């Protein structure tokens, strides 16, 4: 009996999704598609279309632009990581961007008032956490849908930000705060860091494989194990090489990766993270096995508040200023939620990952970055980014479709 029928491409995609690294595949494909388009197709098109051009300029893929892209996506990514955590629960947070705005505004005001910058950072992180947790309490204990609580939060925090910043904006010149976005790691430090990460990743993976063998558990194919290590290694070294070839690795990127790694580890590898997934998958089941669903919910909102505060600090650092439009009034909210969702995190809870949110943020960032390079009119850009967004997510959708 031919039980090994030929697998279609979509079957393969679907099987791949099940693996730990496979969940990255759709969003990576989307990213690759966008990069190919902006990085290769557009320049070639322009070159052939423009008789005056002397040579093709691959600006989008230049190391300088990649550096820009990372910096431009950092704030969205920070918020998206936080939002992913509440999305995993099946909740939503519409107030994250406004929270970031309030925290950034507060940071600016505090620094202006002479509070040491590091202490101001700690204070706003605390404030952000409390703002998130307060909304979490309303969701968990009063039972108001998170959409409404955070919509109210959005309104309230917008108002609060206007109170804190009566003129709507403020310069932030403090060197400590500006440092997050300005300080660059020395080239060698970047290489050392990358090497350390790759080594640690390889050792952990191989040790786990060894333990599995010892305990008689099913093994991952060694192709997969080595493939993962190789993939991770190539990614790390390529990133460091690219960034070094322009300036070098910025502190902001390192911090973002470290925070994401921490949140990622907490959500996937601790009892707490497990309970987030359990609540997202089946809240009633989670409650019945004795998990404190309410407390988990509050803590998840606290995390998104904290991440929003960090996003606010990063934003203040990168923008060198705090303004209402950059946070509360702008497109940051939809972009961060979009980043999480493009990463494949479900709005219905129980499925997703913070790493994918980072990739989703890169997708969103690449769109804006690439379109800005292309010089289209603003109406065209809007329409175009809508279309590309759809294409990017269609890959994910098709790889999952029919699995019901």
């Amino acid at each position, binding site marked *: 009996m031919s039980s090994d029928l030929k697998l279609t491409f979509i079957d393969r995609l679907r099987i791949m999704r099940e693996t730990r690294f496979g969940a990255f595949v759709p969003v990576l494909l989307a990213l690759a598609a966008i990069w190919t388009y902006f990085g290769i197709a557009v320049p070639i098109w322009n070159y052939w279309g423009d008789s005056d051009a002397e040579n093709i300029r691959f600006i989008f893929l230049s190391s300088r632009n990649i550096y820009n892209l990372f910096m431009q996506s950092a704030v969205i990514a920070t918020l998206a990581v936080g939002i992913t955590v509440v999305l995993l629960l099946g909740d939503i947070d519409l107030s994250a961007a406004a929270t970031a705005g309030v925290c950034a505004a507060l940071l600016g005001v505090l620094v202006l008032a002479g509070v040491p910058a590091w202490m101001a950072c700690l204070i706003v992180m605390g404030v952000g956490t409390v703002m998130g947790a307060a909304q979490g309490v309303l969701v968990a204990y009063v039972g108001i849908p998170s959409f409404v609580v955070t919509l109210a939060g959005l309104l309230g925090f917008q108002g609060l930000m206007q109170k804190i910043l009566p003129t709507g904006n403020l310069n932030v010149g403090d060197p400590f705060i500006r440092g997050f976005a300005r300080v660059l790691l020395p080239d060698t430090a970047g290489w050392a860091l990358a090497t350390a990460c790759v080594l640690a990743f390889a050792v952990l993976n191989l040790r786990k494989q060894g333990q599995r063998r010892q305990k008689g558990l099913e093994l991952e194919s060694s192709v997969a194990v080595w493939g993962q290590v190789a993939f991770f290694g190539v990614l790390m070294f390529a990133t460091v090489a690219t960034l070094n070839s322009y300036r070098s690795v910025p502190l902001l990127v390192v911090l973002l990766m470290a925070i994401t790694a921490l949140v990622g580890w907490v959500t996937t*590898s*601790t009892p707490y993270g497990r309970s987030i997934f*359990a609540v997202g998958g089946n809240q009633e089941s989670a409650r019945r096995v004795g998990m404190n669903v309410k407390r988990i919910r509050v803590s998840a909102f606290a995390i998104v508040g904290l991440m929003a505060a960090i996003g606010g600090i990063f934003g203040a650092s990168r923008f060198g200023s705090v303004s209402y439009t950059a946070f509360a009034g702008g497109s940051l909210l939809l972009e961060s939620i979009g980043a999480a969702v493009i990463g494949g995190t479900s709005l219905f809870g129980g499925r997703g990952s913070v790493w994918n949110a980072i990739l989703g943020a890169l997708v969103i960032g690449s769109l804006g970055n690439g379109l800005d390079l292309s010089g289209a009119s603003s109406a065209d850009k809007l329409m175009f980014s809508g279309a590309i967004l759809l294409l990017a997510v269609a890959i994910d959708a098709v790889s999952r479709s029919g699995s019901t």
Partner: protein
Amino acid sequence: MSFENKTVGHTAPPPHLRVSGIHKRFGGVNALRGVDFEVARGEVMALVGDNGAGKSTLMKVLAGAHAANEGQFFIDEAPVNVTTPNDANGLGIQIVYQDLALCENLDVAANLSLGSEPVKSGWGFLPRLLRPLDDLEMEVKAKNAIDRLQVKTLQSVRAKVGGLSGGQRQAIAIARAVGADCSVVMLDEPTAALGVAQTRQVLDVVKRLRDTGHAVIYISHNMRDIFEVADRICVLRHGGNVATWRTEDTTPDEIVVAMTRGLDAGANNVV
């Protein structure tokens, strides 16, 4: 109507878990109207009744999944308070829900350890919730539990529960409850979806639990299974007690009659 005299008297072992006067209302529906119930250590108490009699509701109340509108709980005759599943867990009560309560987005191993995940040692400085999971340990545990219940078609403990067959899911729910450290095990129609061999295993597990001094509550519509494992049989009807019999003093037919028509039509050889 007072049934106290019809329940087991002094000859019965002292109850480990006892509840009395449990009322539970859902909006306008009175699912339980003053139910008394008890189970002793080392005994299998069967709970039977027609569909919608209130068996599952009573179980959920005992497990803290529903808060009773009224009623008292006693463990070893000491009054206790059970309003959340956490309370029940703390009192050593484990339960297999009729609707299983599994998380479809998690894999078999994760579901089996849900709520009591093993963590790696050596991270004592962190709060328990934030220590690293010992997922290998989880898989080993899951594999053993599944093997014990003879669910041979389950290829991998890393398969998502969302893709499992009805019987496979039920086996996981049972494995989760009986694998935990506890004094009371409640099984709500645990073998409904199980195959012949697996049902056999579950009945054996139930007997083993009784022999190790657990208090077991067993809900089923299958009279044969009940008469095989139960020591006593408690009949519910329309959210109230009908009566409790010793298994050796009654017959399946009598129980069926009591379930469907109440006592008036049933026999009278109640303990």
